[in-house]
């Protein structure tokens, strides 16, 4: 098979998985030689409009040092049971309603209290640092949890390219929002676009992942394509999806859930079995695939790497 230099390939050039599989079947069935494969691939590329980024395209990555050895939650569960309120509030809604979501072209703007603001295309983001697979525990504020092999790199890789001013103390994130593409976001009780934030040291923590894929492939739309955050020691809603803006800011930025109910969802939202949600206990969680609940771990089990950032802080007050 003819392959151009990898650096010439862009995100949109990657053959979609469905096509890839179809092609294989096609070839197996008819048994034509590799010359035909080259021809069919270029034909496919011509036939396929290049302004969509596709979920399910393979990514190259290396292993990371942060893996848990717990059993990985099946792909189908992670992609068909999740929250992405822009596409509806039922756990099955994101998979159902996000399939036509356009994720290309896509740019992420990094701005705010920096000397050199700039925009990144998704291709630039993919090439900015070596992609790593990180198998993280992921704990939802609703007391269910999953184990996911995410793909990405530490957010610090991108933040380091900037010269923040002295005022920059926090990093704010913003999701893409388009009512036309997300009609199910109406009536969900949240304000959009979805916004989130981290303290600068939290954002620079190596565990904080800028995520572009999972299970060896690019992100499916319903899980926050094409680029999202994964912050494994915080409740899932902190891990904002489909990011278009990263902003260095002075003060603690507003966050969507906290804005909706500040007594229930704090800025930090660190996983903490001793600090209950006002309406339900956070002491236990149900790992998808299990019947009985298991104990929730402080900082979701990542205390070694993150607890020092909160020394001396009242975690009950700063929940």
């Amino acid at each position, binding site marked *: 098979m003819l392959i151009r230099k990898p650096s010439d390939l862009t995100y949109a050039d990657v053959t979609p998985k469905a096509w890839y599989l179809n092609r294989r079947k096609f070839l197996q069935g008819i048994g034509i030689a590799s010359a035909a494969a080259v021809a069919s691939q270029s034909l496919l590329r011509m036939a396929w409009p290049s302004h969509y980024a596709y979920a399910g395209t393979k990514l190259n990555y290396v292993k990371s040092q942060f893996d848990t050895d717990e059993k990985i939650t099946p792909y189908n569960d992670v992609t068909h049971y999740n929250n992405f309120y822009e596409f509806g*509030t039922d756990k099955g809604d994101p998979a159902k309603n996000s399939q036509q979501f356009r994720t290309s072209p896509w740019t992420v703007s990094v701005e705010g209290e920096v000397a050199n603001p700039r925009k990144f295309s998704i291709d630039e983001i993919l090439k900015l640092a070596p992609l790593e697979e990180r198998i993280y525990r992921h704990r939802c504020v609703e007391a*269910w949890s999953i184990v996911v092999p995410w793909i990405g790199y530490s957010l610090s890789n991108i933040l380091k390219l900037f010269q923040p001013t002295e005022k920059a103390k926090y990093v704010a994130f913003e999701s893409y929002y388009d009512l036309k593409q997300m009609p199910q976001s109406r009536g969900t*009780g949240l304000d959009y676009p979805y916004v989130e934030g981290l303290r600068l040291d939290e954002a620079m923590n190596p565990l904080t992942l800028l995520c572009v894929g999972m299970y060896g492939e690019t992100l499916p739309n319903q899980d926050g394509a094409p680029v999202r955050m994964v912050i494994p020691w915080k409740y899932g809603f902190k891990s904002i999806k489909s990011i278009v803006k990263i902003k260095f800011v002075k003060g603690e930025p507003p966050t969507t859930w906290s804005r909706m109910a500040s007594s229930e969802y704090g800025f930090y939202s660190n996983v903490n079995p001793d600090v209950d949600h006002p*309406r339900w206990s956070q002491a236990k969680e149900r790992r998808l695939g299990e019947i009985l609940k298991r104990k929730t771990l402080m900082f979701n089990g990542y205390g070694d790497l993150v607890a020092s950032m909160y020394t001396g802080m009242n975690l009950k007050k700063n929940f």
Partner: protein
Amino acid sequence: MRPFLSSKWTKVMVFLVCLIPLALLINRALSGRLGANPVEFLQHATGDWTLRFLIFTLAITPLRKLLNLPELIRFRRMLGLFAFFYVCLHFLTYIGPDQSFDLAGMGKDVWKRPFITVGFLAFVLLIPLAITSTAGWIRRLGGRRWQMLHRAVYLSAILGVIHYYWLVKSDVRKPLFYGALVAILLGYRVWAVVAKKVAARTA
């Protein structure tokens, strides 16, 4: 319509229809279609059906009067008992998979979480109603006292809706829908009492 409503077979049919939600759930469970979080699926489904059957039960009296079909009363007890049946299943999903049958832990949870407290109260209120639903108990208590007791179902339905409202994070559309139905059905009763009093005064 009336001979149909009075027929023995209609009652059997309604009984079987009330079992359909359970049959569908069992079918889903056996074919592995309860989704990624089967416990939650069963919890939500049985909770939904409890509220629906409470609403069906509360709808009988207004429908009897408005449609002039007194025969509908034949189905009220059955619908009420099905509400109790589904709330028992709902409670089982809570005390089992959620609390691992730890009664002490459950007690603490019920005490501490308002949304569990009201749900638990709504459930407990239905227990004496289910027990005294027989003709024998109506006789023993006397019609008037029996009726007083069974008005507890109003409170149970209200608490059930609050339980649901307090469960959801931000999307309150479904609990509000149930709440509106309960409000209409209870509002009808208030209106009926007031209308009767006004009629009595003017007579």
